[in-house]
């Protein structure tokens, strides 16, 4: 699905990522943990194509339907249309654009790109209804401006709603569990699990082992100071929970 090779990234002349190597295969769930400021969100944003980050070295190869693409050559909107989804650690508020309008524009862009018919508002609302119910979101969220005044947890649910609408191939979920109450965590985890198929992959960024009780990762990586310093199975997450990060050299 994605193959990251010796990735170096700088922002404003600071090197944040210092040689990341990571391969995620279709159907796999990977989790990345690591101290604050270690570069987890940077990695996710670079994969999604944020323009503020400069890739100084390395490559990202993205393969779907047996076709390999140089991801770094693609514009962010094209990456999204090609099936990459970033669930933001801090979802952006956009006053003035209604959530419904935003979701529908987004959905229809992907439809158009993939040669599927676009949906009119009414059809789109019918399509949304079960997804809202599953996430325990009221339709009122659709008519408010994008994330504007949403509580922390509501913003995260809105991200998962977008995940379900866009149905990507690779989901990068940056601390989607932070700020969620216990019930919401279950709902959100359910949303992520329902996305899981043998064709789709997930990269979870999290600080908490508890998320991994709900979404079982195949691999856990520790990112520290811009490098992956340790990889293992989910027992690594338990070790982090117990011992913190100090034991890592």
């Amino acid at each position, binding site marked *: 699905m994605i193959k990251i090779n010796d990735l170096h990234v700088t922002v404003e002349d600071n090197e944040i990522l210092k040689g990341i190597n990571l391969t995620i295969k279709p159907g796999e769930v990977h989790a990345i943990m690591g101290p604050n400021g270690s570069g987890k969100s940077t990695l996710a944003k670079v994969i*999604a*194509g*944020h*323009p*503020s980050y400069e890739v100084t070295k390395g490559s990202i190869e993205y393969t779907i339907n047996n076709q390999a693409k140089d991801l770094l050559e693609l*514009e*962010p*909107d094209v*990456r*999204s*249309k090609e099936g990459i*989804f*970033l669930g*933001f650690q801090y*979802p*952006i508020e*956009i*006053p*003035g*654009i209604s959530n419904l*309008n*935003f979701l529908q*524009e*987004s959905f229809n*862009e*992907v439809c*158009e*790109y993939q040669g599927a018919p676009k949906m009119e508002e009414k059809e789109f609302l019918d399509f949304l209804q079960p997804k809202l119910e599953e996430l325990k979101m009221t339709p009122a969220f659709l008519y408010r*401006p994008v994330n504007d005044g949403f509580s922390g947890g509501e913003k995260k649910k809105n991200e998962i709603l*977008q995940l379900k609408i*866009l149905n990507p191939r690779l989901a990068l979920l940056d601390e989607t569990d932070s700020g969620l109450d216990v019930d919401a965590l279950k709902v959100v985890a359910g949303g992520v699990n329902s996305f899981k198929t043998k064709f789709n992959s997930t990269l979870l960024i999290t600080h908490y082992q508890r998320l991994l009780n709900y979404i079982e990762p195949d691999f856990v990586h520790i990112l520290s100071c811009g490098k992956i310093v340790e990889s293992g199975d989910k027992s690594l997450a338990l070790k982090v929970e117990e011992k913190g990060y100090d034991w890592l050299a």
Partner: protein
Amino acid sequence: MIESAATLFKDQTRYFQGFEKKGLPNRKTERWKFTPVASLYQKEWNPQAAISAGELDEFSDFVSFDSLGELSKSKNCEVKKLKPSEIESFFQQFETTKFWQEDDSLFQWHLSQLDHFYHIKYTGEETLSLTHSLGSGALVNYGIVFEITSPKATVLESFLGTRGQTYHQTSRFFDLKENQDIKHVIVNEATPEQSQQIWTFANLDHDKAQYHGLQVNFGGGLVRSNPFINIQKPHSFGEFNGFYFLTGADHFDFYSQIKHFSGETESNQVVKGLLHDQSKFAFTGNIYISKNSQLVNAAQFNKNLVMSNQAQAFGQPQLEIFADDVKCSHGSTTGQFDIDELFYLNARAISPTKAKRLMAQAYGLELIQMVDNDVLNTYLTGKLTSKLKTAYGESR
């Protein structure tokens, strides 16, 4: 080049002398420093056949002016051309108000050249739609006194840029009654070869009067809007907001004065817009609070989004506050679209062009949605959407 006054009423000669005493403004004239207008006054204008404006289907109450300032139709409202003696006494009285500024030479010029002066009485409670046609190669000057009888009504003025050049100068006068709530929206669609002076005078000289002004400016080679609001009685509220969307070599100069002459009054002003290509925008926002006007609340905010390297925005708040127990806030920013907002939309498959269009729309709608009048809201939203589609393309 015009060398004498028009002959609509007697005092025009005096106003022309007033203009001549000061002469045309130049770059050093404070209130004209961003906008070079002199050449417009020196040009020869050759009026051709009038172009009529037509009416807007959305609104059943309307008055429309053709491109030479002649009134062509009216319905559900009374319109009359004032007689010379009536105009005379109107302006003699006006000269005694706090609006009168001896040194505003171009306003005196406008008065000296008025060829029509209308009185429009609107008895409806909804929206009175006025259409003004721009074009015909003409230099046009007319004024309108509004008399609005119902406690709450909206006046929509649309300037429709048809074809040809013009230097189109209009003034409008509102005098609000006690408890009256008037919305006044100007939508300007001048073409690049059309220039304008738009004067608005809103007098709030009764308790609890509310005047909500908004100009939505979509173009014009050189457009100067001068909204003046005098708030003279307690519990009154005045605002004049602006949204602009400029392309090509459009030039919009928004020069406003909001004056508080009474305590316990409020005013507000939000002026924002988008500049593309080589367009220019200048904002002067004067807020005056007189010495005895305690407990005044005044807010002003100006935000310009500059979408091209050659576009320019100038902004200057001018606060003159002589009372001490007042709240007055102001802020001004000039920048570009927020990179993280754009990225968020891009990361949701929305192309950069469409993302900009959506954000520009959101930006404009914020002001448009403040106009609490559903029909007008829908009308303005439609206008904005179609302008943005033209500018940013239908999809990609």
